[in-house]
């Protein structure tokens, strides 16, 4: 997964034509650490279908807030630079995210 920081965020996400998945996380967030292996497996399984990124909010707080993310964990799908779907701690679910991915690239 591509590590996002403020220097590459625009290029990798906002200016990208296609589907981008971003995992907003931080090492202090227990639930994020729990999810990480599943998210990495999700990314690996779908390699090539979309771009998979993660953003450590610890050093990139303003960047996260600019994306209207103020809570962890949060997962976001972008398509052609537009935010199209947001999952919060309650709604993150690999199966629904897989379905969404298929729909977005379909």
């Amino acid at each position, binding site marked *: 997964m591509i590590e996002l920081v403020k220097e590459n965020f625009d290029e990798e996400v906002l200016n990208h034509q296609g589907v981008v998945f971003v995992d907003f996380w931080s090492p202090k967030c*227990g639930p994020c650490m729990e999810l990480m292996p599943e998210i990495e497996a999700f990314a690996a399984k779908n390699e090539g279908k979309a771009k998979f990124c993660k953003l450590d909010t*610890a050093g990139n707080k303003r960047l996260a807030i600019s994306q*209207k993310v*103020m*809570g962890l964990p949060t997962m976001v799908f972008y398509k052609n630079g537009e935010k199209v779907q947001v999952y919060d701690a309650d709604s993150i679910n690999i199966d629904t995210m897989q379905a969404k991915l298929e729909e977005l690239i379909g």
Partner: protein
Amino acid sequence: MSEIYDILVVGGGPGGLSAGIYGSRARLKTAVIEKGRAGGQAATTTEMENYPGSFGEVSGPGLMDDFAAHAEHFGTKILKGLVTDVDLKGDIKKVTCKSGEVYQAYSVILSPGAEPRTLNIKGEGKLRGKGVSYCATCDADFFEELDVVVVGNGDAAIEEAMFLTRFANEVTIIVIHDEGILDCNKASAEKAFENPKLKWVWNSVLEEIVGDELVEEVVIKNIKTGELTNKEVNGVFFFVGTVPKTEFLKGKVELDERGYIVTNELMETNVEGVYAVGDAIVKYLRQVVTAAADGAIASVAAEKYLAEKEYFREKVLEAKTPVLLAFWAPQVEKSLTSISVLESVVEEMAGKVSLSKVDTYRNKKTSDAYNVTEIPTVLLFNKGEVIDRIEGDFTADDVKKLIAKA
């Protein structure tokens, strides 16, 4: 699905991990199934000041890593899985995970804990992750130099609010009670009242959270006057208690009307060989120290249960000769007489039949399993089957007639 665990623990919070430590130290084959990272709710709080022996630098996640390492050190297996179904009846219990994986065990300790209660205030669901939070440790960073409100006034609310003052510009606590009254412990209350970054709104509740993409303001309602006040904030933290995560146990073990598992002092549920511990059970104090204590009790009780089962299997069900199983109680005078009748008959038969005793008061489950309602009662077993029984007083001749049926 081949392995059968002695103790299978569902949930790897402090209650489950403590059960793991005691189970594996008793040299029982013990595993803990945890859906996420071990540690449970206790791993979501930085402020952990009341677990005996740990204060100062110890944080919730740190303490929980130690619990998990301790359990693994003595041989507890920590398995990853979300338990979605359980089959607790019978001698071999089955636990099914969302992945389809099925685990088997002779005893099960349920330790699913609890999760934050949501109030379903207008805006709460929509703005979750966008300024609405239930985990200060996870999200505090976002609110550096910003303003937040905290809803709640119990231990968790006040302690997490103090933690938030290290990050936020201003932390306002919305308290439903009259000025000066908090539900939290006195030490935390004193500390909180001295903290200049904490502001208080008394006699009030949160009416609404307003924001388009992020939290922008909240509407606070004074419950005495009905007055509504708007306050610009960037974050709302809820600590208004928890609800037990026992949905998957409905109809499997006895739950109270709020969903908490009902146990006795041995942490036994109403199902034989099934125990429950921690925040998910009906109890007075839900803390790490009490969850850990429950876990210790449950594992020791399970160990005893397994030993009794084993003894019963060996001495009664798998015995080579017919067995007389006597249900008695030291308190019941006439059952003492009947035991001596049985002992003399068995001695006379010189090895053709053996005698086992069940103290009905101590081992109610075995008595119930064989529908024993009267003391004394004697059952004749042969090759694991009940051949016949005598209920109430009997003579040596009655016993000999019974044995003749084997």
